[in-house]
């Protein structure tokens, strides 16, 4: 019985936090946010040197060969640093290849991903969050047609994992003919979403069946949940620090119970999320080894609960900061918006809970 992080895991996360303090400072994120030509190459390079590009790529393919729990801890640190890095594809790409790819596909792509030369992105929003504006990709004779929306990292990815409307998955090269990309400008300027167009685009099918899409969904949910955990923790920490410093009526405002209780409520809501995210990641790893059947349920609850708590913390922390909270000066809004995107990404909490209910036969 050991419900805790290992020493290695703690050190890895602390070390990543320090790397991000240098590579992804608030000033650096501001520049990225204000300039679409800025691709964040230096941030990515620092993370490649850290080993993050190959975090779940097996060692024989040049990666670190770590677990989903490790990836979740990294995602938490990236969320805390509002890092301009599309991390989801960094994890989902290798998982898709390891579980659904041929030996040749693995040998071709995994080392490139681990080296940071090729970034993968997963276009799986439609079969999970539902199709909007007529989106959806169909496959026929090895060619893909249609469009996929809300692809994190989709603008720059050299390799795309694409889900079709029947739940099948395909590998598409970034330079494939007939593939078009356009930016979907949104509130969160720290991560860029793409709309992908497919006009008879050549694709290689991945094996793995419907389980592969479920695994990618679960992994995506865990990573987004961890990102929210990190971002919300920073918003709470900033609120507490501000409440200890800001004076009104000759007192620091953190000595007023009205303010103190807002902080306590944020902590009381957020702290259990940490344990749930850890467990969901652990269950994903256990399921990969054929031990646990509850991984999908835990991933869903981690995603849904961090979405709800993330919204609560984002709004409450902003309020604790008073008028300063809504200014650009503090930059608090970057975390607020990051949490806003995370809530909807791969399904909002209502959608995710509906899926969770169906998994257990607790819905019509």
């Amino acid at each position: 019985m050991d419900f805790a992080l290992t020493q290695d895991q703690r050190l890895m996360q602390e070390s990543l936090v320090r790397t991000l303090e240098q590579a992804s400072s608030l000033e650096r994120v501001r520049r990225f946010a204000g300039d679409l030509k800025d691709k964040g190459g230096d941030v990515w390079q620092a993370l490649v040197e850290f080993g993050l590009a190959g975090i779940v790529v097996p060692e024989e393919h040049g990666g670190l060969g770590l677990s989903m729990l490790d990836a979740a801890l990294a995602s938490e640190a990236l969320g805390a640093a509002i890092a301009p890095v599309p991390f989801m594809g960094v994890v989902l790409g290798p998982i898709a290849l390891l579980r659904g790819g041929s030996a040749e596909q693995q040998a071709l792509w995994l080392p490139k991903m681990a080296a940071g030369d090729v970034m993968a992105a997963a276009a799986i929003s439609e079969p999970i969050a539902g199709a909007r504006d007529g989106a959806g990709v169909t496959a026929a004779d090895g060619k893909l047609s249609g469009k996929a929306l809300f692809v994190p990292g989709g603008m720059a990815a050299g390799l795309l994992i694409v889900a079709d409307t029947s739940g099948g998955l395909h590998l598409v090269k970034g330079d494939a003919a007939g593939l078009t990309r356009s930016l979907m400008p949104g509130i969160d300027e720290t991560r860029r979403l793409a709309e992908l167009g497919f006009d008879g685009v050549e694709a290689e099918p991945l094996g793995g069946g419907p389980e592969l899409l479920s695994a990618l969904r679960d992994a995506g949910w865990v990573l987004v949940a961890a990102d929210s955990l990190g971002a919300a923790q920073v918003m709470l920490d900033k609120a507490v620090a501000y409440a200890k410093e800001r004076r009104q009526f000759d007192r620091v405002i953190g000595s007023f119970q009205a303010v103190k209780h807002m902080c306590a409520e944020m902590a009381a809501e957020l702290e259990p999320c940490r344990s749930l995210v850890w467990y969901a990641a652990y269950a994903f790893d256990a399921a990969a080894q054929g031990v646990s059947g509850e991984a999908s349920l835990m991933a869903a609850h981690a995603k849904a609960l961090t979405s709800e708590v993330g919204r609560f913390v984002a709004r409450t922390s902003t309020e604790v900061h008073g008028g300063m909270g809504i200014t650009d000066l503090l930059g608090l809004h970057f975390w607020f918006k990051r949490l806003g995107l995370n809530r909807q990404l791969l399904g909002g909490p209502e959608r995710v809970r509906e899926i969770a209910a169906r998994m257990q036969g607790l819905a019509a």
Partner: protein
Amino acid sequence: MDLNETPEMAAFRGEVRAFLTVHRDDYAAGAAKDPKTWQQLLIANGYAARTIPREYGGYGARPDILKSRIIAEEFIAAAAPRGIANQGVSMLVPTLLEVGSEDQKTRWIEPTLRGEVVWCQGYSEPGAGSDLANLQTKAVEDGKDFIISGSKIWTSTAQMAQMMFALIRTEPKAAKHEGISYVLIPMDTPGIEVRPLKTMTGGSEFNEVFFTDVRVPQANVVGGRGRGWFVANTTLKHERGMLGDPNATEARLGALIELMKSETVDGQRIIDNPVFSDRLMQLQGRVLAMKFNGLRLLTAQLTKEPAGLAGLIVKLQGCELNHQLAALAIDALGELGVLYTDGPHLRAKGRWQWNYMFDLGLIIGGGTAQIQKNIIAERGLGLPREPKPAAA
């Protein structure tokens, strides 16, 4: 992270399970057929009073958090009664073990464990709730005795208790927290009057206790005169740990799921209504998060690391979740949910309504939700205490 059970623990779990199977005829629906005999059986096998030394009537095992947890889990799974878990066992006995005199330990622990002496707790007063140290029930010296006068409130089991452990102001000149003693009071002493306090549930789960010139030997003080506040605080921790236990919350969630699967409206299962299904899923997510928070706490205890915020939030969140589970059950039952006493349409003996009302009392009692938030903010987040008002 490794949640697998070691072979030693798996074997221990097997022992507990075997015990509960062998003695299946001694209990039913969570109650023992003969509570005192059952208690003796549990102590003899180490399933009650497990870590209390043998010389005081316990089983005498070394503390083992994992084994205690396994016992709790298996008893819940078998719907077997845990034996006596009143305030005497859970609060007085640990206090005596920590600070009691040898004479007090020998005299009180064993009969308390065996259920022969029932205790009640005399802490809160009408004017001393959240501000407990403001208590005014006082003792005046008279030779080797104290003469006690005042009153206590929220005293559960006072009407059946033989003894009370109470906080009494014995040092009127000392500062607020330093003038209090922890005193053992026989309930049959002349001058004590117990009045049941009827609550919104319709029952009287609590009492008021009035003291008029009640004579108690000074030798009944535990832990020294004027040390009562510190003596009580060592065991208040135990009480806060019991309120909000995630295992109990998880069991209640299970009952709610069964209710929502079995109840129908217009022939449709409640659980098939998307609004109700979503409300259930929201609570399930929170219950799971608190369950894993509990595992994290358990690990921190095992490795003797500070649990920090994860521990401070348990009472607040656990009691709130219990209340919300009862609220959803009532809503799922709709008009049936307001039925309360015997009748052909009553569900679960009115338990959900009772819980909904009683659990609101638990959100308030044992440190109100607002006091819990102060504790989280001050001890957990390091925010400053509210400044004391300037003297008028």
